């Protein structure tokens, strides 16, 4: 997974999000939209989302980093930064 580019990461992030909240339409998903506030992702959904990202990208995501994962763009940046070059 180390060489994944932003687009590939974004796709996995969005797919994961849609698993958690199947009513979200990726086509209408603004990259900067706040997942919790704007998409009504509650804390339980968000934890399930984080767990799946952790599994899929094999990265550790400490709790204090959660705010950095509040948007799709934020997730992509975070995952890229966390992955070995």
């Amino acid at each position: 997974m180390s060489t994944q580019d932003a687009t590939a990461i974004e796709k996995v992030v969005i797919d994961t999000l849609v698993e958690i909240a199947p009513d979200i339409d990726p086509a209408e998903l603004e990259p900067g939209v706040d997942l919790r506030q704007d998409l009504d992702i509650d804390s339980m959904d968000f934890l399930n989302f984080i767990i799946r990202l952790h599994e899929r990208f094999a990265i550790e995501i400490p709790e204090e980093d959660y705010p950095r994962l509040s948007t799709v763009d934020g997730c992509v940046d975070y995952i890229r930064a966390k992955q070995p070059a």
Partner: protein
Amino acid sequence: MAEFRMPSLGADMDAGVLVEWLVKPGDKVSRGDIVAVVETQKGAIDVEIFDDGFVQEIVVPVGVEVPVDTILAILGDTPPAAGASTVPAKAATPASSEAKAVGSSQPAQRDTHEAAPAPSTAESSQTSTAEASAGPAPEPPPHEVEAPAPEATAAAPAPPPAAAPTSPKEQVMASDASAAPTEQGAPGDAPTAPKERVAPPTAAPAPLSRSDGLPLASPRARRLAADRGIDLATIRGTGPHGSITGDDVERAPAAATTPTTATTPKPRRRRMSEKGAAAMREAIAAAMARSKREIPHYYLSHTVDLTAALDWLKATNRARPVSERLLPAVLPLRAIARALADFPELNGTYEDGRYRPSAPVHLGFAIALRGGGLIAPAIKDAAGLDLTALMVRVRDLVARARSGGLRSSELQMPTITVTSLGDRGVDAVTGVIYPPQVAIVGVGTPVLRPWVVDGELTIRTLAVLTLAADHRVSDGHRGALFLAAVDRLLQEPEAL
């Protein structure tokens, strides 16, 4: 001999539609196996069996709506004799004279009931006329209307092993920390078509549409389709009402796969259809109206200082892998489950003028569904689970409540309900008891507030704990002691 009957999945359920059999005559079943899928006002539910034995007869074929308590299948201690048929006439009398004549016993139900298990074309279309929606031109009625059972059973896959998870999603949740990463194409993202694509392949049964507007397909079919990256919309269902069975998916992989792999799969849309939302609203209305009509509620509230508990949570989460991390909601759940041991008058059911306390605590956890509605499945034997195990169960339950795969026992079981307002809610909830339970505990959103501790004004994180309980069974004094006991447990989180 044992009878497997249409379960009641709540005080508000009158009838259900048998969507899929997962067993056939001759199959060995064990208590807890999921043997059938039933469509209810609460969506498609996996129904478990409560006896061991061999399936002798399938009494009710797929596609038929029957009242609660109708015999669906007969079990025996030994495999059935060769040539034993399904659907014998004698079994066609469901024991349902008492089957909940609550207002909604439409003629359709009665017809189905009398005609079961082999409804005529006319009757079965009558059964679901209300649900009928325009679809592609129907094909001529198949012969299976005459003899539905063999068809139904022929399509039935082998029974799942007792411990088989019901969905890939659940598998992920259940295996938790050790879970292999789910493949990208796996659980929830089976691409599906808009609901108008649900094609009824037969004229007989009117098409059912799922409450969420997805194509009608069995959980097994969804699982297989997801595993193979098949778009369910490309498969023509041969099940009742045009539903897609597991066998349909198995039969049609090659042809169906091509178009999906070529294009970007459409995301699965799960917003509840208007009809599904209306059905669920009706179910909630029935249960809540009954509650307010029958149960003399009393209400208590108590502000709890959660500072110690949340500080502990933060520290403990730092040392935990993400899959074992705890959410604040799980602390009150654990405290409530433990405190109930000393308050049997809050944990049980009140039916037919009599209260039956429950030894185990099957904690109903109220889950708001995206797009509206609410469901409160049980965390089985919650008092026996530590924080980590409880958290895993809650996560699993929430995921399944929101994307399918709840089990019948989880809906039948709760002995008390907890409604947690989460981190973005409001201060307090005054609950309405879900009959036949006798109590509901509310946990408000934790907030920073000024608070006096040891004579000093300080800033603490507080939450309002509430209790609505049945005055026929308990009094406010006991209720107050219960909330105080929960508070006490929350002050020592490391001992939870």
